[in-house]
């Protein structure tokens, strides 16, 4: 048994792609040993202990010619396999040969397999760097390879790079060539300024940043973990005068542009400091701190400059400029979009403030601030509207009209914001569907799923009473229904059959759908519910088999006893009333099916029974179609 080590040495891999590459490497076939993986931006590493040195001898059965093919065919087959004809044995109507396959050195097998395994890693975007277009493709150029099994090199070559036992240290902190063994690899890297363990880097970043007062942003911490080989944190300062700029702008500059953590003096209140994570061990002369402070100051100055310049032209004077901003090549400009959204907001009953917000919502796209800090679209518009004396309701609606940005994000807090956000997303969806740009498979370049999810979330959370089919029809309605199911199942945690049952009973407003779902979910665990659902399913089947559409119940024809009792019981219930009382029908339904023959020989009687069952089913199907509920008797 031997230890295995593979290090793929590259130029800096984009941080966000590293975790999925490691997941793929974790599946490397190491003959029973379990691969362990880790990475820095410049190396993908796999190691394992207890890898067999040779594969075991084994047997392979080769199927030969048919018995009827004659001796000549059998001899030919044996000769081709390098065996004597006497070694053949009969299996059914065919000859077969049991071949002994000798064990092989695992080092040789890996030498053959590793190049394909390495080049077979899936990346979002690859490049070639040698040999033109026919050359190997990888995420970034491969510059060195360490491949060891025990104390021997597994020899192979990729893109002119031969595998060996020599690694490289940190660009500034380590040596450029370091011979290693499987045993000392990680310690040698550490001596040369590389912390291989991403978990250790993550913890180091977190501990040091917290120590310096940073507010930890997990996403940024992950980015920094995979952008550094030796992370260390420093704290820098900026002039408190910049705190006059909106916190949204300061935070965006720090976090998205400079990858700094912000520092708060109190919850929600920024302090004039930042925490930067370096890809080196220390900053003894303060040069790095000074450099970062200088860059941040320039960025803040830019932001201040943009703010001042942008105020020279009010949002309302920028509406016509939107004609020059493309919304989508085939769909024209943001001016045209704005006109549509204003009309839609009006149609949705938005008041004058909502309409004003819709008119100004996209104007910040023409400002220097948003051109520079695109993440701040909407937010900047809201801040500018406030600064320019627009009513607070207008400013707030603009500020929050891109919300919700994700399923986790909250919807706009104000009613105007909700209506403008709804109209904006709905317009994007309608227009894209109109020109046939519905998302397909994983392709969704205009983030229409997110837009649809936003529409659903706003309608539900804000309890807006627009019937869904008044907002969308056809393909788009189906798309929204699909997102609706996704939302209630994945985000809200309702069971899929409950969602199906409720949606099948019809979709009106989403607040109504939500209320019915909660209703069903509440009654679901009560003992009578599932058996009743099973009975409803049975009724459904009976009606289907009878090809029965609908009919009028003639009470006179009802038999006294279970049939009459059931009729009186359900007829006395309110259709949209509590499901608990519907569930209580169960004993009567059971008794009905125990004693009544629906398919009575008398056709008139049969028709009346079918009419009663369908009447009952329809009555309670306004809340949910119970036949969609999966009961213990089902196969699903």
């Amino acid at each position, binding site marked *: 048994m031997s230890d295995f080590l593979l290090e793929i040495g590259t130029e800096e891999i984009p941080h966000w792609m590293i975790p999925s590459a490691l997941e793929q490497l974790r599946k490397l076939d190491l003959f029973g040993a379990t691969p362990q993986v880790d990475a820095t931006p410049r190396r993908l590493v796999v190691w394992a202990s207890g890898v067999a040195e040779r594969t075991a001898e084994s047997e392979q059965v080769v199927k030969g010619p048919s018995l009827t093919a004659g001796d000549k065919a059998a001899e030919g087959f044996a000769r081709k396999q390098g065996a004597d004809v006497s070694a053949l044995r009969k299996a059914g109507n065919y000859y077969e040969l049991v071949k002994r396959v000798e064990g092989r050195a695992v080092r040789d097998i890996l030498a053959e397999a590793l190049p394909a395994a390495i080049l077979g890693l899936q990346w979002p975007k690859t490049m070639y760097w*040698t040999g033109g277009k026919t050359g190997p493709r990888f995420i970034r150029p491969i510059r060195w390879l360490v491949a060891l099994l025990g104390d021997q090199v597994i020899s192979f070559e990729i893109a002119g790079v031969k595998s060996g036992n020599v690694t490289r240290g940190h660009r500034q902190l380590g040596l450029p060539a370091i011979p290693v063994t499987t045993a000392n690899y990680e310690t040698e890297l550490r001596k040369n300024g590389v912390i291989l363990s991403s978990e250790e880097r993550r913890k180091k970043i977190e501990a040091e940043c917290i120590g310096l007062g940073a507010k930890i942003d997990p996403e940024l911490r992950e980015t920094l973990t995979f952008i550094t080989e030796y992370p260390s944190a420093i704290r820098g300062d900026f002039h408190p005068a910049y705190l006059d700029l909106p916190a949204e702008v300061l935070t965006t500059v720090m976090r998205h542009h400079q990858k*700094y953590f912000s520092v708060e003096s109190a919850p929600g209140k920024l302090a004039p400091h930042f925490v*930067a994570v370096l890809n080196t061990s220390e900053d003894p002369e303060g040069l790095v701190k000074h450099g*970062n402070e200088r860059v941040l100051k320039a960025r803040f100055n830019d932001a201040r400059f943009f703010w001042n310049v942008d105020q020279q032209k009010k949002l309302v004077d920028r509406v016509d400029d939107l004609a020059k901003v*493309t919304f989508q090549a085939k769909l024209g400009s943001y001016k045209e979009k704005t006109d549509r959204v204003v009309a839609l907001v009006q149609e949705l009953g938005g008041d004058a403030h909502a309409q004003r917000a819709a008119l100004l919502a996209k104007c910040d796209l023409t400002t220097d601030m948003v051109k520079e800090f695109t993440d701040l679209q909407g937010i900047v518009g809201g801040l500018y509207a406030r600064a320019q004396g627009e009513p607070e309701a207008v400013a707030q609606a603009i500020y929050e009209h891109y919300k919700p940005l994700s399923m986790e994000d909250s919807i706009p807090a104000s009613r105007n914001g909700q209506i403008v956000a709804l109209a904006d997303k709905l317009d994007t969806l309608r227009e894209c569907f109109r020109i046939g740009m519905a998302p397909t498979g994983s392709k969704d370049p205009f983030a229409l799923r997110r837009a649809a999810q936003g529409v659903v979330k706003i309608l539900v959370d804000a309890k807006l009473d627009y019937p869904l089919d008044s907002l969308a029809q056809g393909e788009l309605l189906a798309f929204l229904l699909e997102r609706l199911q996704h939302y209630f199942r994945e985000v809200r945690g309702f069971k899929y059959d409950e969602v199906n049952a409720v949606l099948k009973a019809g979709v009106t407003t989403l607040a109504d759908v939500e209320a019915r779902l909660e209703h069903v979910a509440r009654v679901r665990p009560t003992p009578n519910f599932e058996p009743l659902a099973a009975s409803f399913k049975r009724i459904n089947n009976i009606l289907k088999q009878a090809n029965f559409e609908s009919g009028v119940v003639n009470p006179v024809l009802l038999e006294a006893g279970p049939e009459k009792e059931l009729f009186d019981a359900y007829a006395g219930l309110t259709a949209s009333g509590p499901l608990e009382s519907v569930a209580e029908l169960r004993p009567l339904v059971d008794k009905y099916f125990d004693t009544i023959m629906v398919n009575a020989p008398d056709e008139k009687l049969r028709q009346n029974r079918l009419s009663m069952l369908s009447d009952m089913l329809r009555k309670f199907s306004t809340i949910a179609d119970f036949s969609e509920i999966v009961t213990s008797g089902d196969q699903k």
Partner: protein
Amino acid sequence: MDTFQETIFKLKHYWSDRGAIIQEPYDVEVGAGTMCPETFLRVLGPKPYRVAYVQPSRRPADGRYGENPNRLYKHQQLQVILKPTPDDVIDQYLGSLEAIGIDLRKHDLKLEEDNWESPTLGAWGIGWQVMLDGMEVTQFTYFQQCGGFDLELVPAEITYGLERLVAFLQGVESVYDIQWTRDVKYAEVRLADEIQFSTYNFELANVDRLWRLLGEYEAECKELLAKYWDAPDKKRFPVLATYDQVLKCSHLFNLLDARGAISVTERVGVIKRVRDLAVGTAKIWVDSQQPEVTA
């Protein structure tokens, strides 16, 4: 502390020592060093090439009348093309930073993903922005495609933003405070350009005439492109002059854009017009580079 021009001398010298031809700036307006024929055409085809040059790059829409300390209508790039890419290209690049006085052991260096794409040139590449103490000092790109052609020898393109880099080295907060020489600051040399060209680009450029000029240069380019294929002696054919027409069109497009004269519906179309010229020129350049077949 080195002056602006001393830093440029050192970088040129550094790349000269590594086998690069030192070219002077191209004399037609370009938006970036990439557009110079020394890059756009030379990266095509199978011939190895190494070149470095400073290129003043004009971006009319970026003009700020000299009021913004970090944003310029015309900034200077030091452009290096290494074709094919040497294996130690990043070490060579880091060496150039050391050569201009940056002790990398005392600084924070990160290579952050930044891919490059130019729809007007039919070109794209994979690479990074090089971050030094939180500041982007260089764009590093492995070209993959140019003028619509997949590249046979992948070149590395290293683009230093000189104003930004030197402002960092000199520790000044406005590019206008950079010492160009010991006695002369950047503002004395360049501020007038920024003010006057911002005024021209944003206020006075005659839109109708710019459109006409665009049409004229385009017509000239198309005519040349069409003539190439029937030309008896390809070696004499003015492929380089054809490419100049492309650059003129590209610059006129940028001017019209800064002037706010290109509507949304027109925009895509104009970009395509310029790209067709660029791709067409790349095609005749590649063809003209084929070794002659002797009978």
